[in-house]
């Protein structure tokens, strides 16, 4: 990823594309060298990284604090599941619908949210995170608590018989996340993206410079929702179906926490954020088994580690490790 704000934009985008392709290629190679479990965990890392991207975009870049990201993910997840399960569409269309419907939902929500800020916006989105998944229980088409299947099917036969489901999940989630993050990174380094930051840092000054603050906030909300929707679709693909309890309020908090650890003001650390969410329970698990602790310790330790990491991040790298790297340069 290139530093934002370079003058020769075409070169930057091209170089960025090269970097993304290179990274994708690296993942492809990596995917062949690790076990099934690592592939499955990798899929979650990619999915969470995308969800964190949506938080960073909304909170870090446009200055709107949302606690309802899990609800937006749920909207995307249900939209995708209905497209595949009920409408019988191709999974790719299903995932596109996840992003699209959540984006439209976010647009409507953004129109309301643009009038709110700070704790009011946080409160509204918090209410959304609590109520929206439960609402799904009210409509039989959404399958109540058992939910509906989100089945992308097995990998195409041409990949060979031994191409596992987990590798297929990894390919889909990594590719979808890479494409989406590439799109967002480009957007943020464009003129449009810079106006996001202007509005975040000083809305009055931005307005005086001729920026339509309200419109920008709404579009940031819509785009962020679209990204969250896609990650919601990917998440339920990994667990093979969608149901209200897959999107608890705690997911919103975890994503926000991970976004703070990775740095709210740049996207360089989102993969790290995804890794934190997936790896912490694993680290806790192996720590406990090494020291011979109880099951109880295994359950408590992840929360403790995340909290510790959060405090350390706020103290030592308030702008995220990505920012720290930049400073060392």
């Amino acid at each position, binding site marked *: 990823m290139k530093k934002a704000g370079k003058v020769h934009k075409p070169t930057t985008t*091209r170089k960025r*594309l*090269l970097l993304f*392709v*290179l990274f994708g*290629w690296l993942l*492809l*190679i990596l995917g*062949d*060298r690790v*076990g*099934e*479990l690592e592939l*499955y*965990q990798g899929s*979650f890392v990619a999915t969470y990284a995308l969800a964190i991207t949506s938080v960073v975009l909304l909170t870090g870049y446009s200055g709107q604090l949302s606690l309802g990201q899990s609800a937006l993910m749920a909207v995307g997840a249900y939209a995708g599941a209905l497209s595949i399960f009920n409408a019988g569409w191709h999974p790719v269309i299903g995932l596109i619908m996840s992003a699209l419907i959540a984006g439209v939902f976010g647009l409507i929500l953004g129109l309301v949210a643009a009038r709110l800020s700070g704790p009011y916006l946080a409160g509204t989105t918090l209410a959304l995170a609590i109520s929206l998944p*439960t609402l799904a*229980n*009210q409509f039989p088409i959404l399958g*109540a*608590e*058992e*939910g509906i*299947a989100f*089945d992308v099917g097995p990998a195409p036969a041409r*990949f*060979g*018989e*031994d*191409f596992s*489901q987990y590798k297929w999940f990894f390919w889909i989630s990594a590719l979808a996340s890479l494409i989406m993050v590439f799109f967002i990174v480009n957007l943020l380094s464009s003129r449009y993206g810079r106006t996001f930051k202007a509005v975040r840092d000083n809305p009055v000054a931005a307005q005086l410079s001729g920026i339509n603050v309200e419109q920008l906030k709404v579009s940031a909300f819509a785009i962020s929702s679209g990204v969250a929707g896609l990650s919601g679709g990917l*998440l339920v693909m*990994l*667990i*093979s*179906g969608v*149901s*209200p*309890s*897959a999107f*608890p309020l705690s*997911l919103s908090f975890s994503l926000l926490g991970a976004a703070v650890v990775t740095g709210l003001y740049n996207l360089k650390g989102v993969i790290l954020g995804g890794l934190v969410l997936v790896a912490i329970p694993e680290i806790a698990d192996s720590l406990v088994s090494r020291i011979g602790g109880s*099951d*109880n310790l*295994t*359950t*408590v330790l992840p929360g403790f580690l995340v909290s510790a990491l959060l405090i350390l991040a706020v103290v030592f790298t308030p702008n995220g490790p990505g920012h720290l790297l930049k400073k060392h340069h």
Partner: protein
Amino acid sequence: MIRNKSMKRATLASAIVATSAMVLSIVPAQANSTGVTATSIKLGVSTPLTGSAGLVYGKVPGAMRAYFDYINANGGVNGRKISLVIRDDKYLPTLAATQTTNLILKDKVFALVGALGTATHSKAYTAAALAKNNVPDLFINTGFSGFANKTKYPTTFMVLPTYNMEAKVMAKVIKDNFPGQATFMLAQDDEFGADGVAGFTTAGHKFTATPTLYPQGTMTAARAEGALTALGAVPGKPVLVLFGTTDVTATLLKAAEKLELTKKFTFLAGSVGADANTLLALGVKPTTIDGVISASFLPDAKDLTDPYVKQFIDINTRYNKGITFDNYVLAGMNSAMLTVQALRAAGKNLTRAGLMSAIEAKGSTFASAGLVPLGYSATSRVGYNGYWVSQLNAQGEGKPYGGKLVIYTTDSGAGAVEISTFVRPTMPKNGIPTNS
């Protein structure tokens, strides 16, 4: 330029994929006795240990492990000691999917036993590819009738009777004992409540008003008081069917206390929502729970005259230190006892397929604390297929309703509710199965 480069890379990547596919294809297929050695059998469970569900159901896996420890101390199963890997899923589908996958891929367990929850386990089942890997999925703790579908869940064995069966039995109890009384139903608005409402409909029972369905977590004290105030105006002694979790039953009973309506209704609480210890712990007065009617398939955990209960209490004291014995501990140990019999029935050459065939062939004869028959067969994956009706007293003990134990059996379909003469198998000596 870039396109050329990326095309080259794509070609290279394809070559790598093809090569690795070839390498992988040489690896032999996973043996179907994964998790079994000459001296050990590794089992696993993904279940809530923390969170609100963990508070209620968290004792179940520990109770299973305690029973296995007891069996291990008495020679194990065919010389093999049983270990149980317990993973916390906090009752969240995402975690259930990852934790169950961990059990299969990382812990490499032989079989799963006692997974809990409908939304969680239905996701975990597919995500962890249990069907594809032919992993036995034993004695799951959910009464959702969908799990009995052998095509969708080919390796799953239920243990709880379905909610549908329970509702049908309740309908019969109302018909036989409360003719002419107004009847109302408050049910959780999900597959659990829906299964219950469907059961009453199948049984031909018509409630005085359409059942009230409330989403999980929305039955507040104010809402409960509102609902009971309205029903309090109904003449006679209306029967109130509560088809929800124990915390909701507690909220409703406490609302009745506040409104002084505890004697106005006959409360008929579903088995999921009538754990006396939990009700008392949640602040319901002993005088209020006195008289609450419920359905059960296991004996009451406080019934010290029951040999299974007595034996399990003894095991709990020795192998599950610090844990109070209650209905959940009883249920956990009972499932563990069924598991041990299934492992024995599968023989010395333990395989996943062999284990499942053994339950299909002999499962209905296994000794268990259950007072109703087990329904396993080549075509049925339903465990207990009936209920007995109990009535709580002020001490929180569940005694047979009407003073005499009556066992009802039925199915999840249109079958009638019948009174059964079933007598459960005698408990194996010291609670240690010797079947083969």
